[in-house]
């Protein structure tokens, strides 16, 4: 197990270095990164001054090493727009994105797994059709469109939820979500929910016909017991990896949903900084999102290895 964990950690670090490489050279590919980093109305003298200040007139290898050595400690330079270190801005936005990601994950787990379970245990039934339909729609409805429709129905027409913004309330020093999280979280959860339904369903279908399930039935266990103790438990192993991967993406911030709902998270920050052509910040967000995703993948892999010994000896 130790070897497995070490090899995964090394892999993850390798990926993150690759990301730094991509993020750095992406700006270089445009020819002159300084022109991207400065306002279009800047005078040639100002451009030169910035080039000097940011060190873009040095040899590319020197620039790359200095970029890496700063990035490793989380220093991605200052946002041109906000005149603040890029990392501080990101950390400021993180709680909102986390709230949204957790809420979306909860919604998809609470709805997706039972639906998949019911569908898998009664193939061809009404529930099966319903959950397969939901799974398919989850995959084909663009969440940015769904969000608009939900706003139209539930905020504009029914007035049940606010149409944008994040409201929180504080209880015993804790910041807690309000109903304002519901619409964005639901729009965001539909895709993950679809994935969970499809996977749970096919896992249940497969496990149902295993010998140990027949044995469980034949020794007289009640159906719900068989489902929870034998089927769901075995299905949970592949589910771990889906949940882990999906949570990583949810945490890296949804640019559409956060923009539409003016949710003050990472996705919104990314959209803003692209609009402002604030590329130092874009670089930082791209790296940070990758960091979150890679870390979660790593944790998932480790959890997977713990849960299923077969994986370790691959």
């Amino acid at each position, binding site marked *: 197990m130790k070897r497995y964990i070490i090899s995964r950690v090394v892999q993850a670090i390798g990926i993150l270095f690759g990301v730094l490489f991509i993020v750095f050279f992406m700006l270089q590919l445009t020819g002159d990164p300084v022109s991207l980093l400065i306002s279009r109305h800047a005078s040639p003298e100002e451009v030169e001054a910035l080039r000097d200040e940011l060190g873009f007139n040095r040899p590319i290898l020197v620039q790359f090493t200095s970029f890496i050595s700063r990035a490793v400690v989380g220093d991605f330079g200052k946002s041109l727009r906000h005149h603040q270190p890029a990392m501080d801005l990101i950390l400021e936005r993180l709680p909102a994105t986390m709230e949204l990601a957790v809420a979306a994950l909860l919604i998809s787990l609470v709805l997706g797994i039972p639906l998949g379970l019911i569908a898998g245990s009664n193939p061809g039934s009404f529930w099966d059709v319903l959950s397969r339909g939901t799974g398919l*729609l989850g995959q084909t409805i663009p969440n940015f469109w769904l969000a608009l429709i939900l706003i139209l129905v539930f905020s504009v027409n029914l007035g049940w939820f606010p149409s944008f913004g994040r409201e929180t309330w504080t209880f015993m020093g804790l910041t807690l979500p309000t109903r304002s999280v519901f619409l964005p979280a639901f729009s965001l959860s539909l895709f993950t929910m679809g994935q969970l339904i499809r996977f749970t369903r096919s896992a249940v279908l497969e496990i149902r016909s295993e010998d140990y399930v027949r044995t469980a039935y034949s020794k007289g266990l009640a159906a719900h017991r068989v489902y929870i103790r034998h089927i769901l438990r075995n299905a949970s192993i592949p589910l771990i990896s889906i949940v882990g991967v999906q949570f990583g993406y949810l945490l890296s911030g949804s640019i*559409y949903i956060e923009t539409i709902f003016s949710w003050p998270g990472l996705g919104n920050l990314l959209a803003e900084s*692209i609009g402002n052509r604030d590329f130092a910040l874009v670089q930082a967000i791209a790296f940070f999102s990758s960091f979150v995703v890679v870390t979660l993948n790593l944790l998932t892999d480790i959890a997977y290895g713990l849960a299923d010994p077969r994986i370790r000896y691959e």
Partner: protein
Amino acid sequence: MEKSEPEIKPMHQGKVMDKSEPEVKPMHQGKVMEKSEPGIKQMHQGMDTKVAAAKKGGETSLQGGTGLAVDEEKKKGLLHFVIYTGRLLLRDKAGAVGLVMFSMVVFAALFAPWIAPHDPMKQNLRDSKKPPVWYEKGSMEYPLGTDNLGRDILSRIIYGSRVSLTVGFFGVLIACSLGTVIGLFSGFKGGRTDNLIMGGVNMILALPYLVFVVFIAAILGSSLLNVILIFGFTDIPIFVRITRGEVIKMRTSGFVESAESIGATNTRIIFSHILPNLLGPIITIATFEMSAMIFYEAGLGFLGLSVPPSIPSWGNMLAAGRKYLTIYPWIATFPGLAIVFTGLGMNLLGDWLRDVLDPRMRRVKK
């Protein structure tokens, strides 16, 4: 749905990866065994005819896979293939519906100038913000209403399908051709080359797809060509992974071993034995990936990072309609429905293809 892209991917891959082997093996092995009595030379010939048949768009794997038409194999030809496919399609209603939906979109894109009732670019401020025909103030002149500049929404949706399908088709073409070549190379070569390539592939697949696509699009600037190139190149890893997985499975399977044992060259093995059997999984993945690209293109358009706003595309229309959501909801609603319609059609079609090309999946499903 980010990821839809990246997120869509693992699922399809998982499903496709664990397949195709059973469909491939029985076909070739069966053939070899039958012919093994008369001697090795004939066996080789038998395989050659098989291979020639397989070159015709993967129909052999259809037949071998379903076990329906083993006897009819000799009756080749386009007509037979069409009838056969039609029969398979009718068995699965969802697949037929998907094909019809997708064909409608392709038809709209191809014949847009003839179908569209208006010029999609023509502004007519006097007729702006007209509601669809079923509203009181709507008229048949603009069946789905007009946008804030008085442009006909139906016509813009019809023309918008051109952008979506162009991006999807050429994006997949680039990703698929390069990805297959790299995957073949990686799987066949093995060893250090394979490790290196797969390291890169896994790295790219581990990134938050949407964040990087948005990042690249913002740097390169918006144009149709850029969008195609972005999707084409970022999607290569998916095809590499699929191809490589299949190649590695096939290399150790009976029919490749027997080809090797009679002295077939690597080129021959790749082109005559492996590539035809790769068609099934690749076509399936290509369908899903194309649908994902259409989706992402709309997403980029929504952020104003896809084709320039002057070109009618579904994403651009959504972005424009968002501002008027509460007062003139139809401006944003219909382009969204067009995306859902296309995505649904392609997903149903993809599911059907997967079932047809992999009988094992079908058994699990029913």
